[in-house]
């Protein structure tokens, strides 16, 4: 609480104005990791629609990968290879190398900040197995995931928050960023270009608008799993940040690749970490068969998620599902013993008990794939700088974490690589932003009435007295996405979803916001969030329709093979034309971006 930090806030026409060197949107793992770098170096504010500790990073369970080699031989090269292979070679290999190399420091940083990792008998950070992580390029599973019981994400989130408290980072909690302000500036070569000049946020408590003028803006708003019905994601993961960037006309990369985690509690989607299988749990079908032996003979249940999820759905589709409706498979932990479950997997043990009434110590747990992680998002380079096309950097704009696409995950993220991603690239975003704002750049002037768009958007929604319920539209979107754009997709199913979405976009214009008040109007915000969900679902489906091959998280029943010839490239989706038309083809333009390959040539992916 030092006085040189003193902020002057001014109010113009009811809109509050703030000025910061760096504004970070999102206080999850990526946002706070960036803040820890940025805070000491520049005047920084973190805007978050949730209290920082409510962010969904806290839900992550299993671990964070780093080739520390604390318990067995390991190397960051192997980690790089696994990441690339896990991502079905759609990974940008320069980024994957950075991820794997900087992983070690990232884990050590966290430990030094206080994170209570589980320990080995000699007091070092303990490590466990995880899907797709292998020794020596696929020979056998390796212990690479650093963990704290099954609460790794919780510990990361708490530790980062604790360090933000230590550093006195300024948080604007329960502020919803709703717009990125771009200003037309002279590009220096006679043309003009768009440059970020600030952020517009809505203060939930009062209903007032705030404009944060900033030299650099970092997006760290997390994923958008709520486009699906069955998901491990929080209610608040509605992809606002990705949506904002999209609406600004910036591209989105690889949106068709969504990860379905094999082991969500059946019917609920609450996650049971892959760490369970890392500790030895086994997937079984109705007859008790360990079916993964058939599909991935070497690493069996520890195959990457896309493969396991697909096998599970196939088992159920072929009638070998368990339960009265034969619609799930079983995760068998009974042989692990109460001791391992209580000490290494206490939380998921409790989830199964609480929400299904099933005690994993004695009974196998019903599981089915659950929408989990968006591989795609805002395209960035390895410096976490946002790109406006395949190569052009938007100066002063950064993105990190699940909302970004570097792309280290390619078409399928390996378990434990995301907690790593948020730390490595969160740190990079923060550090590079500081470097940028301290390099002599000035504030970009704000346009007249920077909050105008948001104000109009909110006014329209608040005054809307339509007949459509927000929840009904959202539910239909989620149900349809689950049916048509989940683990298996076909052009038919995708066409159908696209049609449904078009209809829903029409209906969205006629919604009713019942709460007309200013204070804590969550009804209004749900309407705004639904808008983002519809936008993003539309991009996901359009991108998926366009990729006529099967790769990683994107499995086309009608094109079951990987097609490197045509599709060994990233999808880039651009908003063009009429943003508000219901028909996707009117305003989505799809393009490609080459994959960076440094040392591993694409091979067939077998485990």
């Amino acid at each position, binding site marked *: 609480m030092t006085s040189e930090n003193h902020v002057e806030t001014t109010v113009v026409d009811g809109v509050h104005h703030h000025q910061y060197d760096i504004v970070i949107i999102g206080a999850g793992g990526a946002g706070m990791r960036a803040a820890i770098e940025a805070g000491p170096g520049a005047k920084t504010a973190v805007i978050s629609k949730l209290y920082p500790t409510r962010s969904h990073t806290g839900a992550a369970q299993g671990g964070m990968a780093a080739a520390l080699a604390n318990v067995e031989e390991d190397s960051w090269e192997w980690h790089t290879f696994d990441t690339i292979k896990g991502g079905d070679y759609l990974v940008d290999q320069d980024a994957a190398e950075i991820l794997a190399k900087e992983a070690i420091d990232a884990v050590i940083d966290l430990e030094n900040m206080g994170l209570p990792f589980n320990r080995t008998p000699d007091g070092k950070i303990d490590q466990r197995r995880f899907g797709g992580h292998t020794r020596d390029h696929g020979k056998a599973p390796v212990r690479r995931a650093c963990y704290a019981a099954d609460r790794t994400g919780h510990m990361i989130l708490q530790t980062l928050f604790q360090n*933000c408290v230590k550093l006195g980072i300024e948080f*604007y909690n329960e502020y919803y960023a709703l717009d990125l302000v771009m200003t037309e500036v002279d590009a220096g070569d006679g043309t003009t270009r768009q440059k970020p000049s600030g952020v517009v946020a809505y203060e939930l408590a009062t209903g007032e608008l705030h404009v944060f003028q900033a030299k650099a803006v970092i997006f760290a708003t997390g994923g958008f799993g709520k486009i699906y019905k069955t998901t491990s994601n929080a209610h608040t993961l509605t992809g606002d940040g990705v949506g904002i960037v999209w609406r600004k006309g910036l591209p989105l990369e690889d949106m068709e690749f969504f990860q379905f985690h094999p082991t969500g509690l059946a019917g609920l989607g609450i996650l049971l970490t892959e760490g369970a299988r890392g500790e030895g749990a086994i997937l079984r079908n109705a007859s008790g068969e360990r079916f993964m032996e058939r599909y991935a003979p070497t690493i069996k249940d520890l195959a990457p998620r896309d493969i396991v999820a697909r096998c599970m759905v196939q088992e159920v589709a072929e009638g070998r599902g368990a339960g009265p409706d034969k619609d799930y498979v079983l995760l068998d932990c009974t042989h692990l013993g109460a001791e391992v479950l209580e000490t290494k997997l206490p939380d998921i043990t409790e989830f199964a008990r609480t929400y299904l009434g099933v005690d994993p110590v004695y009974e196998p747990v019903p599981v089915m794939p659950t929408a989990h992680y968006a591989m795609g998002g805002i395209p960035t380079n390895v410096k976490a700088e946002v790109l406006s096309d395949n190569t052009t950097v938007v100066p002063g704009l950064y993105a990190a974490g699940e909302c970004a696409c570097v792309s280290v995950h390619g078409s399928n993220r390996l378990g434990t690589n995301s907690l790593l991603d948020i730390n490595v690239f969160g740190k990079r975003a923060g550090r590079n932003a500081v470097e940028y704002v301290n390099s002599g750049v000035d504030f970009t002037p704000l346009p007249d009435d920077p909050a105008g768009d948001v104000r109009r958007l909110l006014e329209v929604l608040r005054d809307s007295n339509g007949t459509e319920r927000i929840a009904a539209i959202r539910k239909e979107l989620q149900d349809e996405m689950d049916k048509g754009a989940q683990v298996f997709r076909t052009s038919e199913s995708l066409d159908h979803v696209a049609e449904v979405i078009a209809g829903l976009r029409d209906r969205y214009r006629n919604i009713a916001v019942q709460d007309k008040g200013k204070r804590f109007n969550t009804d209004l915000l749900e309407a705004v969030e639904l808008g983002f969900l519809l936008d993003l679902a539309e991009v996901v489906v359009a991108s998926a329709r366009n990729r006529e091959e099967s790769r990683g998280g994107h499995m086309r029943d009608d094109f079951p093979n990987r097609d490197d010839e045509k599709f060994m490239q990233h999808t880039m989706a651009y908003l063009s034309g009429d943003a508000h038309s219901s028909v996707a083809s009117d305003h989505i333009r799809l393009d490609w971006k080459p994959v960076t390959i440094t040392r591993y040539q694409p091979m067939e992916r077998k485990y």
Partner: protein
Amino acid sequence: MSATTTRTPIAPEKPATHKPGGTLYRGREGMWSWVLHRITGVAIFFFLLVHILDTALVRVSPEAYNAVIGTYQTPIMGLGEVALVGAIVFHAFNGLRVILVDFWSWATRNQKVLFYIVIALWVVTMLGFVPRHLMNVFSH
């Protein structure tokens, strides 16, 4: 050294203004034992104030003391004494429970069991005391 936030600055010198009411909190053994401990503590305290004053009358004269202490021997006061002893016994036993809970982790974990032990001991003690005391009070 603290994270700052821009929402709702609180002025800690002034207690938060609470909206009234809501339902009664349904605490368990721990809370109700504390409520009883507090009530009995206050009751005993006020009795003690009076008791010191009346006992001090011994310094005035035997007559004065006997007059006042005589009122302790009426049936009504006799019942009051039952209540007083009940309060003291609960407060004492529960006080010991609190001390155990403070210093012994087994007791911290098993405070509910200890609460029922306190109740049981209270019943036993009162069974020993009440008949005897009432016989004294109501004899002749």
